[in-house]
């Protein structure tokens, strides 16, 4: 069952089927019918008033409209296009240099550290061997160049095939190794 305003609107607009219209009109007493007819006339008058006084102007500058639109599309497509890869990017160079340095240090450390037995001190580092065979955690005591504000640690896990070099106290990342 449609709410009254829906059915009434459809009746005003002549959008009801003949059966629906008859059913709707049968439900109105003479006074209501007269009011509904007046309302229908008012609706038509309102529509005429709107159409008469609110004409739609033509699109101004239609050719420029297309041109401007296609320019915008081209600009957006250019903006969305991925930037070409630049091998010489300073950021990338710094990233790879840092990564390379860390890898070299970790490999060197892995080659020096004895990974079994009790914790022990060497002249170069203090290493603690955790329970897993072949694993170690080490603090590097001497580094080149020596900077007392920097602490270096290394962790290696044989089972995970993982080596992490951890530096504390760096104020910045060096630009080149």
């Amino acid at each position, binding site marked *: 069952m*449609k*709410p009254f*305003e*829906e*059915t*009434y*609107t*459809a009746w005003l*607009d002549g*959008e009801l089927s003949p059966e629906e219209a008859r059913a709707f009109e049968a439900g109105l007493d003479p006074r209501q019918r007269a009011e509904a007819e007046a309302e229908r006339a*008012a*609706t038509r*008058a*309102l*529509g*005429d*008033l*709107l*159409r*008469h*006084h*609110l004409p*739609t*102007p*033509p*699109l*101004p500058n*239609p050719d420029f*409209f*297309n*041109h*401007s*639109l*296609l*320019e*915008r*599309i*081209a600009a*957006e*497509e*250019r903006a*969305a*296009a*991925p930037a070409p890869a630049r091998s010489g990017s300073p950021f990338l160079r710094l990233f790879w240099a840092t990564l390379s340095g860390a890898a070299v240090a970790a490999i060197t450390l892995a080659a020096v550290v004895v990974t079994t037995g009790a914790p022990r001190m060497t002249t170069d580092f203090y290493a603690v061997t955790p329970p897993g065979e072949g694993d170690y955690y080490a603090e590097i005591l001497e580094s080149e160049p020596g900077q007392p504000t920097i602490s270096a640690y290394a962790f290696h896990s044989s089972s995970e095939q993982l080596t992490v070099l951890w530096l504390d106290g760096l104020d910045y990342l060096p630009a080149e190794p």
Partner: protein
Amino acid sequence: MREVTPATDHDRPAGSGSDDLPTDETALIERARRGETAAFDALVTLHRQKVYATIYNATRNEEDAWDLSQETFLKAWKSLHLFRGQSSFFTWLYRIATNVSIDWLRRKKIQSGTPFDDTILPESFEPGSHTAPRREATPRRQIENREIRRRIEAAIETLSPEHRMVITLRELEGESYEAIAEAVGCSLGTVMSRLFYARKKLQLALKDLYETV
């Protein structure tokens, strides 16, 4: 990423211009979906006036309607891959245009900070007031017509964006309930209900005009 073809006839290489474009809309849509802006250009030419009219009737401002029509087609271009052909291309475009218009009307309402006035009283517009149309000489009539138009636009301005879209689509563009429901994205019942209340408000504000004109 779509390859962008040049934007103007002058820039188009031979063979990619509008000369070899199909006249069939479906073929144009297919080529536009492949990134051919010349085909999209032809689609814009086909529908720009109707889109502009829809938006203009909602905004009542030429510059805003022009800009929003651009936005509508830009969105259509970006969303062409989503057009499945389940409705006509224009119905799909129409829906974008009405959404763009309603969004704009909502933003405008928020920026202006003035709520829509649902309480326009008939006594605010006395039939005998200076704004009421009179049957006088033509020059004066023209001035009065401008005043009538201003009053109608002011009355429409008080409607909510949703009510405004529905009444303009129905009364100014003569759209069916089904087309309006599709464009606005609501049910037929909602269209009828919105029409009912929008008309009530406008009749209340403009009754003296259509009873004397």
